[in-house]
């Protein structure tokens, strides 16, 4: 699923955020938390998994795609195969909730009919069945993040990457998001990698933890 060996990451090519770091392979159905203090490089590491940050050196494989000098074609293929959840939701404001959920399916070449049926199914799953026709700005932060989870699940990915998915949410909304991610992991066997400041108490699932400090990755 994800293999990393001696990876070095840098935003500007000069200052390395993560240097020559490795960790044990992330396998199917793993639930992995990436933690660390602010500015430690946890989001940078997550971004490198979908090549939003280019690998400076080392070996990084995600869903069998080699990320060092990845071609545009392979990058598109990689991104189509995973689901991504962002702290700021990154929903398209000109699209309705339904259309946002349909987006990965449309990009993957599914017909409107199939994409819409899947969107309706997922809207029920995230308990927003009546909100399909509204625009994201009409929803609360918690609801928008549930739409983002539904979008990440829409095309049945085997890997979901989440960057501080509960960072902007109150506890109640955050718990709903954690429950959705746990269900995806338990029931759909989706590998989940989450960047977070704080791992929820009584999480209720076995998980791995990658802690980043001083440019190195420690597993606990």
């Amino acid at each position: 699923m994800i293999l990393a060996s001696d990876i070095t990451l840098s935003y500007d090519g000069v200052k390395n955020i993560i240097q020559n770091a490795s960790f044990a392979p992330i396998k199917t159905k793993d639930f992995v938390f990436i933690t660390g203090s602010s500015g430690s490089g946890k989001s940078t590491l997550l971004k490198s998994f979908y090549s939003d940050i280019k690998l400076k050196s080392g070996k990084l494989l995600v869903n069998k795609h080699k990320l060092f000098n990845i071609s545009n074609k392979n990058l598109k293929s990689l991104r189509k195969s995973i689901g991504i959840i962002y702290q700021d939701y990154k929903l398209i404001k000109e699209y309705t909730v339904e259309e946002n959920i349909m987006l990965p399916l449309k990009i993957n070449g599914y017909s409107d009919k199939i994409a819409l049926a899947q969107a309706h199914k997922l809207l029920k799953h995230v308990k927003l069945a009546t909100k399909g026709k509204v625009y994201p700005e009409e929803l609360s932060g918690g609801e928008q993040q549930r739409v983002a989870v539904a979008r990440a699940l829409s095309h049945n990915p085997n890997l979901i990457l989440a960057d501080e998915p509960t960072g902007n949410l109150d506890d109640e909304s955050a718990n709903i998001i954690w429950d959705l991610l746990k269900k995806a992991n338990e029931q759909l066997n989706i590998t989940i990698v989450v960047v977070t400041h704080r791992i929820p108490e009584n999480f209720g699932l076995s998980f791995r933890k990658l802690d980043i400090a001083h440019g190195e990755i420690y597993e606990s």
Partner: protein
Amino acid sequence: MSLKRYISFSAPLIIMLFTFAIYISISKIVTKYEQSINNDYSIIVVSATPLLESKVKELSSIDLKEIVHLKREKILKDLKSDLSTGSYKLLEKRLPYFYKIHLNKFPTSSLLKQIKIDLKTISGIKNVETFSKDHDNVYSLLLLIKSITTALFISIIVFTFLIMVNQVKIWFYEHQERLDIIKLHGGSIYYGAKPIIKTAFISSIFSSLFIIAIIITIKENLSIFFTYEMIQIINTNLTVYTPLEVFSVFFISIVLSLITVFGILIKHRIK
């Protein structure tokens, strides 16, 4: 996309297409006028010996349509009554041959000078009258207008293109967030830019139809837009667009719009 956004893209396109329409019309007027004056125009050649068509065709400056031999008998017959028998016989013996040379294309003043020089190189030719002083002033003026219109059309294409490029850049800036999200999901820049491509395409069709409507309106109301003298020059038939010209209006409009959008798209391709 709001109507304002369509108009901001269509406006420069409409101005460019209008210039193109004027360019087409001026070209047609010049061509038609050229044909009309060319039919009435000929060069008179006086030759001591019969003029061979092949000799004239050899001259590179002449695009020969036909040579008409002016019958000597007719000239002699007209003069017969005024001359004595002796004088008539002498005249009959010495009267040169007269020819009218018709050209395929109305020549420019400089070409006329060259034709005169070239014709005089043929042995036997005694005189050539090109009527260069009567060379049509209106035609010269039309040629000048055509040149100005061509220069104007090219300049406006350049400025229109620059304005359209800026407009498309603004669209991309406005759509940047959506394009980024689509790229993060593995979508191509072309997928993300569909609304922009669609807007540019619709604007180009709208601009073409608008210009064709304007031209038809002008054609149907020539007397409102032009004086009687002008209408004599702008023959109503000239402003009718042929299917090829209508196609070329659409073609220029669509191609220029899509080149603008795809040119900027290439710069935004996924990295």
